[in-house]
């Protein structure tokens, strides 16, 4: 491996390259030029004076937050000979499984198009564009006939793929499997043990306060809650992403949660962001995509309006339809094991100048996709802001929930196997007894349903199911 100095230089060079040409870069440039008029900027100490000005005016903090954001998504430094597909996913059998899964999805989408005689994308006629513009804020009132359309896949289909993942170099003989994995995911990925988890989640220890536990009605607020809220307000006034992330480990007060999350994600709602959102909206108006029907159907089936629990159905359309048109999302495929689907316009197959990505953001929505957006609707009431936060959440975290990856943050290791490990350690004796007497016990971790809890009706089932096979 490279030495630390080389690794750091490479990381810095990559971050500088990423930030060049961004909105923040042009703003800082403009500020640096304008500050030259100021009396405190001297020629002989030009560089230091400009730096000092940028620090005092808060621009250095904004730059720090942007660098912190890039560090979150940048893949770890790797050997110079590493090919790009290895950076996305280092294990060959996982790459193969992901490619095979993607092929299934593409075939399914293609066959639906062919059966229904519907194109994947078309330009909307002018009348239709006008209609859609008029009803943009109330798309939920529309009740189109979507009975012919079916979701491309559901979370249980993906779960079956994860369960069937096997390393061809792994010993799966009977003797080996008796010592092997207790959970559904049979891949030998590194999972933190209890001491490591204690260290990683030290803020969850009994001596540390937590909102949701130490702010209940019967607990005096002076013990923890008041002070924690005061610190939260201070963190927000400092506008420091890293500090906000650290703060949130002990819980976010309800009134500060929206601002804290957007600070942690470095998600802004500047005029440029609003402009970008409106451009995406124009993309929705001008072109009709098949995935729009999939989104409509998904929202209607999973997160449509309910008088008591969820009244934000319109927001879901306003976010998800725009999300499908956002080519900025394509950046995340450099660290996602998935690959965006490709097509050719006007039937010009094989001609690269007519090659396009479909949908424009490279993400085909599946049954339950709207669940990713639904919880955020409770926090943000402005569509462009809601959109910006959702997009950042997706390219940092949510994409891992539906791609096959060996990443430590990926679905195959955390949280599936982490949960399993904890369960096994806690229930060791009981599980051993059951296993030996009754054959295979499948605790049935329903990973995808953990997302459903936040937008569906409140239910008490945690998703644990035990099946004893005789």
């Amino acid at each position, binding site marked *: 491996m490279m030495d630390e100095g080389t690794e750091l230089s490479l990381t810095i060079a990559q971050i500088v390259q990423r930030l060049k*040409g961004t909105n923040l870069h042009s703003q800082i440039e403009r500020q640096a030029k304008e500050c030259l008029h100021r009396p405190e900027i001297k020629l002989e100490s030009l560089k230091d004076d400009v730096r000092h000005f940028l620090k005092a005016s808060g621009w250095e903090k904004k730059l720090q937050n942007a660098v912190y954001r890039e560090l979150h998504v940048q893949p770890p430094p790797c050997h110079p*000979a590493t090919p790009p597909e290895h950076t996305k996913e*280092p294990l060959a059998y996982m790459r193969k499984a992901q490619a095979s899964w993607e092929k299934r999805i593409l075939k399914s989408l293609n066959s639906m198009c062919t059966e229904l005689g519907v194109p994947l994308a078309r*330009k909307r006629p002018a009348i239709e564009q006008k209609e859609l513009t008029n009803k943009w804020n109330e798309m939920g009132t529309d009740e189109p006939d979507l009975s012919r359309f079916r979701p491309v896949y559901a979370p249980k289909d993906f779960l079956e793929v994860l369960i069937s993942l096997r390393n061809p170099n792994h010993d799966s003989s009977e003797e080996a499997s008796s010592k092997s994995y207790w959970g559904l995911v049979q891949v030998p990925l590194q999972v933190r043990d209890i001491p490591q988890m204690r260290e990683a989640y030290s803020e969850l220890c009994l001596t540390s306060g937590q909102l949701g536990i130490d702010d209940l009605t019967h607990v005096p607020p002076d013990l923890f809650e008041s002070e924690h809220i005061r610190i939260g307000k201070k963190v927000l006034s400092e506008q420091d992403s890293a500090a906000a992330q650290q703060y949130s480990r002990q819980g976010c007060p309800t009134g500060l949660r929206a601002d804290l999350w957007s600070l942690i994600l470095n998600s802004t709602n500047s005029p440029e962001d609003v402009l970008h959102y409106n451009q995406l909206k124009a993309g929705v108006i001008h072109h009709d995509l098949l995935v729009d029907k999939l989104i409509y159907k998904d929202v209607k089936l999973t997160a449509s309006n309910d008088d008591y629990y969820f009244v934000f159905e319109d927001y879901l359309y306003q976010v998800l339809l725009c999300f499908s048109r956002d*080519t900025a999302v394509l950046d995340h495929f450099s660290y996602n094991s998935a690959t965006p689907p490709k097509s*050719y316009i006007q039937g010009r*197959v094989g001609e690269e100048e007519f090659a396009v990505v479909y949908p*424009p953001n490279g993400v085909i929505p599946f049954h339950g996709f709207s669940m990713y957006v639904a919880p955020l609707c409770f926090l943000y009431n402005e569509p462009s802001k809601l959109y910006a936060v959702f997009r950042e959440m997706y390219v940092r975290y949510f994409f891992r929930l539906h791609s096959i990856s060996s990443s430590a943050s990926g679905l195959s290791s955390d949280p599936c196997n982490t949960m399993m490990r904890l369960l096994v350690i806690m229930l060791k004796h009981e599980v051993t007894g059951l296993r030996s007497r009754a054959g295979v016990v499948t605790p049935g971790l329903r990973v995808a349903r953990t997302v459903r809890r936040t937008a569906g009706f409140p239910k008490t089932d945690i998703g644990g199911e035990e099946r004893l096979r005789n």
Partner: protein
Amino acid sequence: MSVNTVSCTVKPAITLQLGDAKTDTSRPGVYVIDVTLPIGQTVNIQEISFKNYYTACLTLRLLIRGEEGAAKWATCLRNRCLMPSPHTEEGSQDYYSVYRQQMLIEPDNVLAVRLILRQPSSSWLNFSVEEIKIHPCITEDPERDIPDWLSDLTHVDQLSDLQGLPDPQTVSSSIQQMWALTEVMQTNQTTASVGRFDVDGCYDINLLSFT
């Protein structure tokens, strides 16, 4: 990582295990791979790079030609860990390099390289290293002669009497700084994409393409 590699022969891996290899049911935990250079050739090694395949740790030995032609084996890397946990996937298929500076001895006049691979975990059916490459030291170019006129320009004259004017060195250094800043700002190309997904306003697609 240098691109130059020397041509070498990677011999098939030999197992090291106790007992009779044919009747023993357990898989070997140690493999030895020899990499030899063409006869008579030696190399001063800058770097050895390879791709791992489930090897947990690696020891490297070099056959070095000493004085009077006598060759001797010496260990240059001892138990370098490639997989933090031998039972789990981390590091199992990653690319690695061992650099000259990391070696215990000077890797000069090397005739052959021996890789000793260890995998204590019985979880894996096989383990090895692939794409082994030996990168030689690059010889430095001899210094080029500087033309006389260029060496004249670099000679700094000392001005004896500035007559109240600022020091030319300070002025020129400040002007250089400002020039450099403006150059940097002018030449910065934007890497942000425009955001359009259509081709000349058209985005009519019938079917997806997959290879």
